[in-house]
């Protein structure tokens, strides 16, 4: 089993996003970075697939040298190999990201069985990189998966719907895009983190062109609706007031 998981480094935004002066990106001067949540589950799934079936897992990202940190987290979680497609461009258009990833996969000549992507990145939410890579490589693909098992060259993947789940079967190799809730990602030990932080990450120049005809103009922080907060009390004595609110709303 040779799973590949593609991950994205995103800023760890606090209570409210602050933009840079040119409104082109989030001001990250006071922020750390983290993994996009769906992809953290993608890493865990890749590690579990290898634990169950043997083989080696690979994590791949596209980004600046700082994104090595997220690949090192993947290694600390148990991924065997990591590669970064080097690019300083922030907000690269999704068709170009997909082109770069598909090109890198072809050049690596590895026989990946399961190519895992996040369903959508937490920051840009473009919902398309995994599908575009599948199309470029001519692989079967299913998105939004919250349950995955692999047996005898077939992936059984489930997608949540209200009150139940849809089931899909795909011949491997296949592209699966996943959502948080797929599994419970492990917390790597401090020792594993320390070791991983010393691992050198292989880098390759990000290739690919993508398609034209779309450009970001600027980011905008939406105005929040100001709401007056009525403090009902500062102790359990406020309980009757809470009940009164529930009564007024006719929910009791």
């Amino acid at each position, binding site marked *: 089993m040779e799973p590949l998981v593609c991950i994205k480094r995103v800023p760890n*935004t*606090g*209570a409210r*996003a602050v933009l840079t002066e040119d409104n082109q990106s989030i001001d990250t001067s006071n922020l750390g970075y983290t993994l996009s*949540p769906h992809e953290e589950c993608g890493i865990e799934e890749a590690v579990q697939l290898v634990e169950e079936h043997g083989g080696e897992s690979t994590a791949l990202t596209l980004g600046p040298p700082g994104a090595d940190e997220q690949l090192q987290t993947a290694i600390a979680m148990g991924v065997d190999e990591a590669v970064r497609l080097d690019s300083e461009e922030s907000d690269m*258009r999704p068709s170009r990201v*997909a082109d770069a990833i598909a090109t890198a996969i072809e050049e690596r000549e590895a026989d990946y069985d399961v190519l895992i992507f996040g369903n959508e990145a*937490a920051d*840009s*939410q473009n*919902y*398309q990189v995994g*599908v575009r890579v*599948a*199309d*470029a490589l*001519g692989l*079967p*693909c*299913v*998105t939004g998966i919250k349950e995955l098992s692999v047996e005898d060259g077939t992936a059984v993947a*489930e*997608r949540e*719907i*209200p009150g*139940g789940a*849809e*089931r*899909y*079967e*795909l011949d491997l190799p296949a592209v699966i895009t996943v959502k*948080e*809730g797929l599994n*419970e990602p492990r917390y790597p030990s401090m020792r594993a983190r320390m070791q991983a932080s010393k691992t050198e990450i292989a880098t390759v120049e990000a290739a690919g062109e993508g*398609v034209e*005809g*779309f*450009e970001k*103009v*600027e980011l*905008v*922080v*939406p105005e*929040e609706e100001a*709401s007056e*907060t009525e*403090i*009902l*009390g*500062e*102790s359990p004595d*406020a*309980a009757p007031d*809470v*009940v009164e609110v*529930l*009564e007024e*709303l006719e*929910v*009791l």
Partner: protein
Amino acid sequence: MVLAIVDADDGEVPDETRQALTLARDVADQVGESLEAVAFGEVEAAAPTLGSYGVDTVHAIEHDALDSYAPRAWAESVSQVADAADPDAVVAPGGDRGPEVLAHVAAKRDLPMVAECVEVTADGTYEITRQRWGGTLLERSRLTAETKLLTVAPNEVSAEEAAGEATVRSVTPDLAEADLEVQLADVEMSDEEGVPLGEARVVIGGGRGTDGDFEAIEELAEKIPNAAVGSSRAVVNEGWRPHDDQIGQTGNKISPEIYVPCGISGAVQHMVGCKGAEHILAVNTDPEAAIIEKSDWAVIGDLHEVVPAVVEAIEDHE
């Protein structure tokens, strides 16, 4: 012409599709063209509803091999209708299937796709406002591609009917075996009891402040009809509650009459999951917590004392 993708699985037109039809009709009006739909499923049954959203022509996809959802086959069908009709834009609903199908169309036709749109000003080029970070940030962008591919952010555009009647014409697409390789195999409904979070009228939420103890919160939810228990992402990460209970950007989106977050600080990613709530009543020890200013009412206090007192007050009330 503007072409909307419609999933009429069982003859019903889902809410997200109605929202997408509303945005698509707005774009069609701006460019002075008609609104048409490419529809899958029980199209005849859905046609009157589609007409009421301003669709004039429905291209009903019929194919012997297409008895259940197949993302590439749907994309190929949309693409063939687009080839014949040359639409200015193709609009898909948000959710799972809409973006999946349209991303395949985008890849197949070498076009950009713009996801999570909330507003479009169309005048030759499209000036688009779309959501990022679950809606905590907006992006203004410009789309100049020959065919504009858009998906609509769920529950951001309010569905509005117009008058009209739709003519249905059936289309049999030319599908290759590869288009049908991935197809929905079956659907399993869960037999879990209780009110689903997304449909509850009252949601009681628990955060890190619970220290993992949800007993009082569950008791409170049991006392209130149509109530469900939810949680923050921190709680799920601690392993105190399953991911199914999570409210937020990567969890459930709730829309109750009232949401009662207890011991939840109110991170932006949590707030995008509960922005559909009509009212918020927060219980928190910290008067400076972000959740307090986003609430209509608040009790400043320890949830371990306040929640049992509320349970008792409801009992007294009965």
